[in-house]
C-alpha cells in the first residue's frame, strides 16, 4: 500500500549582494562584472562577495569582456521529460576572458558540427525591454 504526495513549497531565492550587482549590470548595461581578489590574484566569474581562498571581503569590481572560449560543450536532443526537441540545443561551459571563471549557457548561430573546443564566443543579449536581471538576459553566445 502506498500514500502519494509531494513537497508542496514555493521559493523566492535572492541573488544576494554580489549576485544582484552582477545581474543588474547584465540587465541595465549589457555588461559582465567580476570581482578580483588582490591577495590571491584571482578574478571570480560569476562575482562573489568574498574570496573563498583567503576569505577577504571583495570590493574590487571590474568590467570584463562578454566573450569567452568554449572549454566543453554538449548537444541535447531531448527535453527534461524525454521528449524530442524540435532543434538540438547546444550547451557550453564558457571560460570568460580576463577571469578565472566560466558561465554555462547556450550556443547559437552555429551548426553543431562546426563547434570546436577553444572556439571564441560572444554573448548576444535580449533586447532591453525583455531583460529582467537573470542569466537568460543573455539569449545565447555566438561565434565571435
Amino acid at each position, binding site marked *: 500500500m502506498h500514500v502519494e504526495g509531494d513537497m508542496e513549497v514555493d521559493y*523566492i531565492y535572492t541573488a544576494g549582494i554580489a549576485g544582484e550587482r552582477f545581474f543588474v549590470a547584465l540587465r541595465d548595461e549589457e555588461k559582465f562584472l567580476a570581482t578580483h581578489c588582490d591577495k590571491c590574484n584571482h578574478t571570480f566569474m560569476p562575482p562573489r562577495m568574498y574570496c573563498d581562498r583567503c576569505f577577504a571581503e571583495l570590493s574590487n569590481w571590474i568590467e570584463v569582456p562578454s566573450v569567452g572560449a568554449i572549454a566543453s560543450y554538449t548537444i541535447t536532443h531531448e527535453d527534461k521529460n524525454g521528449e524530442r526537441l524540435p532543434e538540438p540545443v547546444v550547451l557550453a561551459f564558457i571560460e570568460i576572458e580576463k577571469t578565472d571563471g566560466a558561465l554555462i549557457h547556450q550556443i547559437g548561430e552555429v551548426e553543431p558540427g562546426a563547434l570546436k573546443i577553444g572556439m571564441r564566443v560572444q554573448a548576444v543579449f535580449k533586447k532591453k525591454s525583455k531583460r529582467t536581471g537573470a542569466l537568460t538576459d543573455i539569449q545565447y553566445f555566438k561565434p565571435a
Partner: protein
Amino acid sequence: MNVKRRVAVIGAGITLFRRRLKETGKELSYLAANAALESAGMTLADIDCVVMGTAPDAFDGIHMKADNLLDGAGATRKPYSRVYVGGGTGVFSPIGGWWHVASGLFDTCLVVAEEKMSPCQPHPQTAFRTIWDPIITRPLNPNLVWIFALEMNRYMKTYNIPKEHIAMVAVKNKANALDHPSAQLAAKITVEDVLNSETMVWPVQRLDISPPSDGAAALVLASEDVARKYTDAPVWIDGVGWSLDSAYWTNRDLCFPQYVAEAAKMAYKMAKITDPPKEVDFAEPYDPFTYKELHHMEGLLLAKKGEAPRLTAEGVTQRDGDLPICPSGGLLGVGNPIAAAGLMKCCELFWQLRNEAGKRQVSGAETGVAQAWGDLMQVGTVTVFRR
C-alpha cells in the same frame, strides 16, 4: 568517558537576525564566519576543518544546502561536515566541532550555523508540511504549532501553571534583547500584552512565539595549546551532551522533556557538575515558545519539575537574579533562524564568560549552559562553557 584533550572557544561572530535578509545563505555564512575569525585574531589559513550546522533544506529551498553553503563557510578544500538535528542543530554544531578537536585529529575548527527561512513561500510553516509521517500524520493536515500547543497544555495542566507566569518569559526576553545588536524583535512589552495577543493555537498566543528569521553565527574552536597562543581568555567547552527520543511523541508524557535531561546529565558528568542549580551561573535554554524556556529549565535540572514558572515570577531568572536565564534575549527577542539561533546562545555564553556582553553582562559568570531542542519534540543538545 575518557576525553583526550581540552577544547576552547577563542572567537565568535554573528550577523543581524531579520525576517528577510538580502544576502544569500553563502554570504550570511561568510559574514558570520569572517567576524568569528577576526575576533579570534586568525585567518582562514589557520583553520584545519569546518563544521556546518544548518537545519531543514526545505527552508532555504536548496537540497543538500550545506554543500552549497560550503565556500561561504570557509570550507573550500578543507575537511567539512554537516551536523543536523533539527532545532537542536545550533548547540549541536559546536559539539560536532568539539569532537573534531578533542579527538586530536585537528587543532582548530570553524563552526558555522546558517539559516534562511525567508525563501519559503507563503510562509516557512509550509516547509513543515513534509516533516510529518506521511502515512499516519500528514493526512490530518497538521500545523506544526499544534504539537507545541499540545505540549504546553499538558505542562500547564500537570503543574497548574498560570498563563501569567509563562507570559513573563516573553516580557523578560524581549526586554533583554533590547541590548542585543542582532535582535529582530526586541521590545518593552507587558504580561497584559501577551495575554491579549491573538490566540493562534490555544493555549499558544502570538506573543508566545518566536519569529522565523534569516541569520548566521560562528565560533572558532582551538585545542588548549593553540588557544593559549591566541588568547589569555579562552572559554573552555567543559561539557557536551546530546540525546534523542523517538518520533513517537504521542507515546510519552509531554510534561517533562526526558531527552533534554539525558543530554544535560551527559554534559554535567563531563563538566563534573553534581548540583546544577548551585554550580551553573547562568543558562541559555532554547526558547522558541515562552513555555519552552520553563520546560527546558526543568529538563536542564536547573529547577524542580513544575518549579520554573515560580522562579520566573520571583525574578530569579532576570539578569540580576540568582540564575539568569536567556540574558541574550533568547529566540523570543533576538530571533529564530533555527540553527543560527542555537549557536547565538553559545556565542552568548562566550561573550558573557569573557565579560564582553556590555549591557547584557551577568555578574560573576564562571559557568554557563546552552541548550537547544528540535525535530518532532525529540532532541536535547547541551553545552557547558567555563571561563
